[in-house]
């Protein structure tokens, strides 16, 4: 059973971390472990498209949707783990990380991975809440890993804002439980159970419950205006952790929102959640647009880009229909990969220049050719330009918008992403092109990073036009799950 | 048969074109109560220039050398397009009244380039002003031509000349074309052929560097070009009596008379007043198009 590997491997990796004295072997084992997890998750995905679902312990329930999110998480985890190896070593060499602090990093890294995998596979929504909260607590240490003023400030904001959010999410969960037990007649918080009795639930309560869920988990997912912690955390966390936050943490929170949305939609149709999700989606894109235009810090730029993409996903999800939801899910996948790619490049660049201020970074293509190219590709991919896969998912969402009659929302969406494209490319091209600093030495890229960059580029290029059949099936059945079919 | 007549006509007009210039000059002198040179003076000038030695700047290139021939060719080709008295289908097939504008542009283009070729400031200034004036004259010329052509439904000069009706629009267009003619043939108030004063020269400045044979060719093509414009005025604006040599001659004489009268009665304008004159011509031609649209 792949799922055991996926759940236990991170715990094991976390448990053995303190045994290591040197960083190098630990990083290697960590990366290998995550590769194993990735392979298992692919196998799980293939398995699930055949089996439909896996349930055990009365606690875990895995269907296509879970498998899909686990796949995305495992992908990002793997790239992040591989990238961490070089990144943390460099930190040790430069004295940012002293002594055995790297053990702490890897242990937290894996604990975080565990909580996220747990989130995607648990059936009980209460336990899901617990897992997300645990993930927040663990990652707070990762955000504050460098232990300097700024990173502690970021970590504090992250912790406090997410705690408020998660409290509201818990209230929403309580509401769900209330109506499930009162009107549905079940005394558990199992998602499957709630889906079964969804028709009997009280719409009035569901509405209010959904509000709290949306605001609560939305805080974690980085939906505006609750996104405020996100750019700070991106800015201060080590680059692999930023990649994890965007590729895993935000997606996990969205996953939870999606699960709840499915229940609400099954009870009272998609209008209510659709309107809310479209509203918050557009708001996120718009706010991200403004901040991207006025941005001066490269890592914060990426943070706002994540907010934008979260907005796009929730917009697609709110628009609904098979194409809309399919597009949103596909976008989850695409964004995770493209974001990972840009972090692979950008992390090295900001470290080389010892600043993330875009006004001080020029000519990265001259100094770090490979990283520069990676950032450039990723930037165009993120900005939604073909032939990269984000274009495909965005156009799917737009098509769905026009199909379901959300004309205004779609038009605003398309114009906003065009504006974001402009600002984003403007910022990135300023960093990548131009003359590099005079006395800076050219820096090569390690082979591992090169392979990762080429791999991701290939994937986002190919998936723009064709996806493997198991992936299609996975996506299609995930869409059906979310539509309650 | 007809083609021979037409060719003969063209050769005749080419031969007589300096005479028209001489005639105008003579008229002007008479108006000014002066004796002036005889009407054959342009011929004397040409023959003198043709046999004189040519002095050429060492800065020049083949553009400078070929420009006189190209200019001459463009003027003659334009003349061939004008069915002054006799008309011939195969020549008519070469092009219409719009074609005349395009063909003349060829000569102008090369003369202007030649003006720049020697590297003197005079030539450059002349080229600049020539292109300036001609480009601003272009819209009113086209509109006037359109107005005339709209009356007959064809831009073919043969067709236009073949409809012996005087339209009011034709007259107004004629006035506009007359102003264009003044501009294109370097007449007062736009330009002054008789002076070599730096501030006022346009055409003359452009060809200042020419001498001898080349200058003769340039002057000859100016005479021919003048005949092209006069003939267009004669046959297109007042399309009566086409095919009749005498009426045609009469019309040319009348136009020459007008030009001479105008030249002695007004002063040359400075360059940026010319714009006003050309705008006036433009307004006239727009009115002409308006009248044509109404059908009068």
């Amino acid at each position: 059973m792949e799922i055991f590997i996926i759940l236990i491997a991170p715990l094991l990796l976390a448990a053995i971390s303190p045994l290591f004295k040197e960083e190098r072997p630990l990083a290697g084992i960590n990366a290998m472990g995550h590769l194993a997890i990735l392979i298992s998750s692919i196998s799980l995905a293939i398995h699930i498209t055949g089996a439909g679902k896996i349930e055990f312990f009365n606690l875990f329930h895995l269907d296509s949707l879970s498998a899909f999110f686990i796949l995305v998480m495992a992908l990002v985890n793997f790239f992040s783990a591989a990238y961490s190896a070089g990144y943390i070593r460099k930190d040790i060499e430069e004295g940012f990380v002293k002594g055995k602090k790297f053990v702490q990093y890897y242990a937290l890294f894996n604990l975080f991975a565990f909580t996220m995998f747990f989130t995607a596979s648990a059936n009980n929504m209460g336990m899901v809440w617990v897992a997300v909260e645990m993930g927040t607590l663990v990652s707070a240490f990762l955000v504050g890993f460098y232990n300097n003023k700024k990173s502690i400030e970021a970590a504090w904001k992250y912790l406090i804002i997410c705690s408020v959010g998660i409290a509201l999410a818990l209230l929403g969960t309580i509401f769900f439980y209330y109506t499930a037990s009162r009107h549905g007649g079940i005394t558990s918080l199992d998602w499957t159970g709630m889906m079964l009795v969804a028709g009997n639930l009280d719409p009035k309560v569901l509405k209010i419950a959904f509000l709290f869920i949306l605001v609560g988990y939305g805080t974690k997912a980085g939906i505006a205006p609750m996104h405020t912690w996100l750019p700070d955390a991106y800015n201060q966390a080590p680059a692999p952790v930023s990649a994890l936050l965007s590729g895993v943490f935000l997606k996990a929170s969205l996953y939870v929102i999606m699960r709840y949305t499915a229940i609400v939609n099954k009870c009272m149709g998609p209008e209510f959640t659709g309107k809310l999700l479209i509203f918050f989606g557009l708001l996120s894109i718009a706010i991200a647009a403004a901040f991207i235009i006025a941005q001066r810090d490269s890592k914060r730029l990426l943070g706002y880009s994540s907010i934008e993409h979260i907005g796009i996903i929730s917009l697609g999800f709110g628009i609904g229909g098979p194409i809309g939801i399919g597009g949103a899910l596909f976008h989850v996948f695409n964004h995770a990969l493209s974001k990972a790619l840009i972090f692979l490049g950008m992390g090295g660049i900001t470290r080389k220049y010892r600043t993330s201020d875009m006004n001080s970074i020029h000519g990265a293509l001259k100094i770090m050719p490979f990283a520069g190219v990676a950032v450039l590709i990723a930037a165009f991919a993120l900005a939604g330009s073909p032939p990269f896969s984000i274009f495909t998912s965005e156009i799917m969402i737009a098509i769905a918008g026009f199909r379901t009659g959300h004309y205004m929302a779609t038009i605003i969406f398309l114009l906003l992403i065009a504006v974001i494209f402009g600002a984003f490319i403007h910022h990135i091209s300023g960093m990548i092109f131009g003359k590099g600093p005079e006395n800076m030495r050219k820096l090569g890229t390690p082979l591992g990073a090169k392979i990762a960059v080429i791999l991701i580029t290939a994937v986002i290029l190919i998936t723009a036009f064709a996806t493997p059949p198991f992936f299609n099936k996975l996506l299609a059945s995930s869409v059906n799950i979310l539509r309650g079919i | 048969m007809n083609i021979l007549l037409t060719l003969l006509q063209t050769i005749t007009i080419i031969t007589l074109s300096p005479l028209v210039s001489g005639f105008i000059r003579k008229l002007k002198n008479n108006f000014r109560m002066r004796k002036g040179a005889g009407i054959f003076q342009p011929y004397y000038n040409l023959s003198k220039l043709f046999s004189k030695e040519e002095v050429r700047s060492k800065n020049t290139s083949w553009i400078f050398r070929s420009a006189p021939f190209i200019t001459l060719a463009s003027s003659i080709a334009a003349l061939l397009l004008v069915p002054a008295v006799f008309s011939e289908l195969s020549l008519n097939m070469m092009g219409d009244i719009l074609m005349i504008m395009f063909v003349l542009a060829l000569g102008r283009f090369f003369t202007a380039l030649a003006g720049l070729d020697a590297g003197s400031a005079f030539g450059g200034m002349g080229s600049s002003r020539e292109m300036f004036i001609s480009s601003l004259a272009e819209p009113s010329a086209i509109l006037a031509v359109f107005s005339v052509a709209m009356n007959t439904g064809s831009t073919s000069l043969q067709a236009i000349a073949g409809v012996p009706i005087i339209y009011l629009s034709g007259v107004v267009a004629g006035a506009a074309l007359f102003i264009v003619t003044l501009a294109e043939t370097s007449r007062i108030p736009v330009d002054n052929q008789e002076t070599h004063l730096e501030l006022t020269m346009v055409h003359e400045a452009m060809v200042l560097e020419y001498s001898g044979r080349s200058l003769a060719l340039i002057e000859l093509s100016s005479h021919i070009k003048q005949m092209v414009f006069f003939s267009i005025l004669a046959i297109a604006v007042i399309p009566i009596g086409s095919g009749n040599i005498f009426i045609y001659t009469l019309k040319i004489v009348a136009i020459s008379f007008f030009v001479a009268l105008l030249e002695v009665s007004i002063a040359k304008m400075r360059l940026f007043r010319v714009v006003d004159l050309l705008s006036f011509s433009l307004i006239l031609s727009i009115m002409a198009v308006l009248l044509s649209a109404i059908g009068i």
Partner: protein
Amino acid sequence: MVMDIFLLCMLITTFAMVAAKRMTALVNGFIGESLFLFFFTLTLGLRSAHAELLMVAALLFIIKVIFIPYSLKRISNKIKAEEDLGLFINPMVSIFISGGLVYLAYLFTRRIISMPGAIENAAFFVSLAMILIGIFIMVSRMKALAQVAGLLVIENGLFLAASAVSGGMPFFVEIAIFFDIFLCVTILGIFVYKINRLFTHIDVDKLTELKG
């Protein structure tokens, strides 16, 4: 009747926390609030004869009435934080705003939720009020510890809501949530230490290095 009184007392202690200007007062307010919450849960447990609820009540007493206030006070003493909480909004206005939030909670409860018994309705209303006021405390107080306290008020509210809903959530969920909150407070405490060490103060309103 008794339970109504407990609820009322909880609301009053919450208001007392809003009005508090000093750390000690705030923590004492929290102790009061948690104590009444404990009483409330205990009564509920006794009445409905839920063994689980009794256990939860016991946990509540240990963690919220004893452990958390103690550690808060310890942290406060250890880092020698100033007693003053630093108010963005003065107590009078704060109380008015909190009153508004309570009214909102009341309206909301009446319109949306219809519990079987009056007591559950009231509990729900109070819990919502506490959550909103908790957030408000976090917004309006400058010190890091005050924000922790605000968070604790929210969590008390949540707990109340959970117990109002048919006698608490599934037991293991409840335990997990407890554990989580416990962990959360501990970690927040760690970060308060860190802030104090790096910045030599815990005025979170001065942590504005990251913006835009």
